[in-house]
């Protein structure tokens, strides 16, 4: 029996798919059959799984190589410059002072102020979305959040310059370009990602455990407690991811932080982050200055890898 008659007989007897899975117009069987008869040559070329393994492995090796490339390029820097120099707080590349302390502190302070705000606000909005998931407002807000995620960070930066900086300047004094302004801008920027990640993992969780809603109604736990206790991986994974997003964000910070080369003493001081330094100085840097910027990128890569992979086994199993 050739493939076409075989396909016809299957489509007539309906043995290929259960009744509820049958696609509209019953064209799937015909297409499968056509794919089989037309694709003999393609199959001979491509269905070699050893070849496929090689291609995937090659792609992975290319990606690993790319991630390691800044480290390879900054190897000389780490060999030549003593650790006390590049961990210090003196960033004067022209005089061979390559301390990353100020930039690292700036990045960490930004994460420290933004992360709790973004997580709490994202959590509250996602719980509201879950509670109102049958309301018309839900798809509207989810749509808005999806657009927000793809919105360029410079748009938030411009909005922060127009709206936030004058408010901070008028209320607290100073020039407005400060840690506070950067925190507000970053919270607004990062909160949609946080909200959608929590919301989607909660919905996935509801799909997996159908009785969750009824157990929530009967339990003494709040909805948040129930979610954290039953789905810790989703919560930790989201926090790790948001941490990296805040640590690595460049444009919003570059536009509203003031980029002062100092450790901020309070929320109203300007500051500079690791990523903003790379973005600002890469255009004109040369020699050891450029290598120091690559080294800065390598430090950021290693740090982010550490944060992402700290829960590696748990996340892979999940």
């Amino acid at each position, binding site marked *: 029996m050739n493939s076409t008659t075989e396909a016809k007989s299957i489509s007539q007897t309906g043995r290929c*798919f259960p009744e509820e899975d049958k*696609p509209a117009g019953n*064209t*799937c*069987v015909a*297409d*499968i059959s056509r*794919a*089989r008869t037309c*694709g003999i040559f*393609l*199959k001979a070329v*491509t269905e070699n*799984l050893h070849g*496929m*393994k090689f291609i995937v*492995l090659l*792609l*992975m090796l290319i*990606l690993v190589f790319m*991630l390691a*490339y*800044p480290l390879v*390029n900054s190897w000389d820097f780490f060999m030549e410059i003593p650790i006390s120099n590049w961990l210090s707080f003196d960033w004067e590349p022209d005089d061979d002072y390559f301390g990353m302390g100020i930039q690292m502190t700036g990045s960490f302070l930004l994460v420290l102020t933004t992360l709790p705000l973004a997580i709490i606000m994202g959590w*509250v*909005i996602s719980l*509201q979305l879950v509670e*109102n998931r049958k309301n018309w*407002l839900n798809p509207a*807000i989810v*749509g808005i959040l999806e*657009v927000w995620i*793809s*919105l*360029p*960070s*410079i748009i938030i*930066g*411009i*909005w922060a310059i*127009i*709206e936030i900086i004058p408010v901070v300047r008028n209320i607290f004094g100073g020039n407005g370009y400060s840690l506070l302004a950067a925190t507000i801008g970053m919270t*607004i920027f990062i909160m949609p990602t946080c909200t959608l990640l929590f919301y989607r993992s909660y919905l996935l969780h509801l799909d997996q455990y159908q009785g969750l809603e009824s157990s929530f109604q009967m339990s003494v736990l709040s909805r948040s407690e129930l979610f954290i206790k039953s789905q810790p991986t989703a919560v930790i994974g989201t926090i790790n991811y948001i941490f*990296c*997003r805040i640590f*690595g*964000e*460049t444009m919003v910070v*570059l*536009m509203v932080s003031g980029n002062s080369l100092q450790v901020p003493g309070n929320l109203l001081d300007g500051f500079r982050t690791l990523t903003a330094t*790379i*973005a600002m100085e*890469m255009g004109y840097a040369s020699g050891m200055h450029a290598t120091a910027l690559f080294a800065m*990128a390598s430090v*950021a890569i290693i740090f*982010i890898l550490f*944060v*992402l992979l700290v829960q590696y086994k748990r*996340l*892979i199993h999940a």
Partner: protein
Amino acid sequence: MLKIVRQRWILWLYMLMTMSIIATFIVPLQFQYTTSGIIFGTIVTTLGAVLLAALPAYLIAGVMAGIIRLPKWLQSLTSVMVYILAGMPSIILGVIGFLLFSDTLGFGWSMLSAMLTLILLLYPTLVTAFSQLLRPFNQRYGMAAKSFDIGPVEFLFRLSPAYQKGKILEALILGWATSLGDTAAVMLTCGALTSFPESVMDSIRLLNYHIFLLAMDIPGGMPEARSLSLLLIIFLLFLFITPRIAHRYFSED
């Protein structure tokens, strides 16, 4: 009415905040420094990057969706790489692109360098989007395809596109929106020339970087930056509505 607002005041507040942010950009349009080279270069670079990234991302999505069965360590490695690249800051990807494509491979500040850098940025987005559409398709038709002796690659590249044109288009449009929204990854690789590009080796200024320069460096450029931002928001909204229509009219499954 008041009761409804009181019950869901957080969601209403969020909607209000979004409206107020968009309202900030509603100003009389002004275009003085924007050239056709910027618009054309942005469209070509971002679209080219999406198309270049689509094939490897689709293949890896097939691995992650369980269509192509590989050793467990290799499957774990693919998942971990997607997870790592998704969390990697775009400026770091820009540094990698600058070092590798602009410097070592000698492409310089060009559209090609920017495209190749954007592939790194788009890879996790596209893999996630593709694997989300491939996983249910595999669960539904995988066994049937096996009974017809259809291999995984044929299933992936022949059957799935035939049935999920709309969903694939949706993922590609999402990728395009992502690449349009990024600045830091390309500001180190594309250059800043505003002239009309004649080949992929020419330097261009991408729209986002142009908006950044208008807002920060060019005196009196802020009104134009606001106008361009508004147009970009409207275009992104259009991009998010289009996939839903595409999905409705092109997906047979």
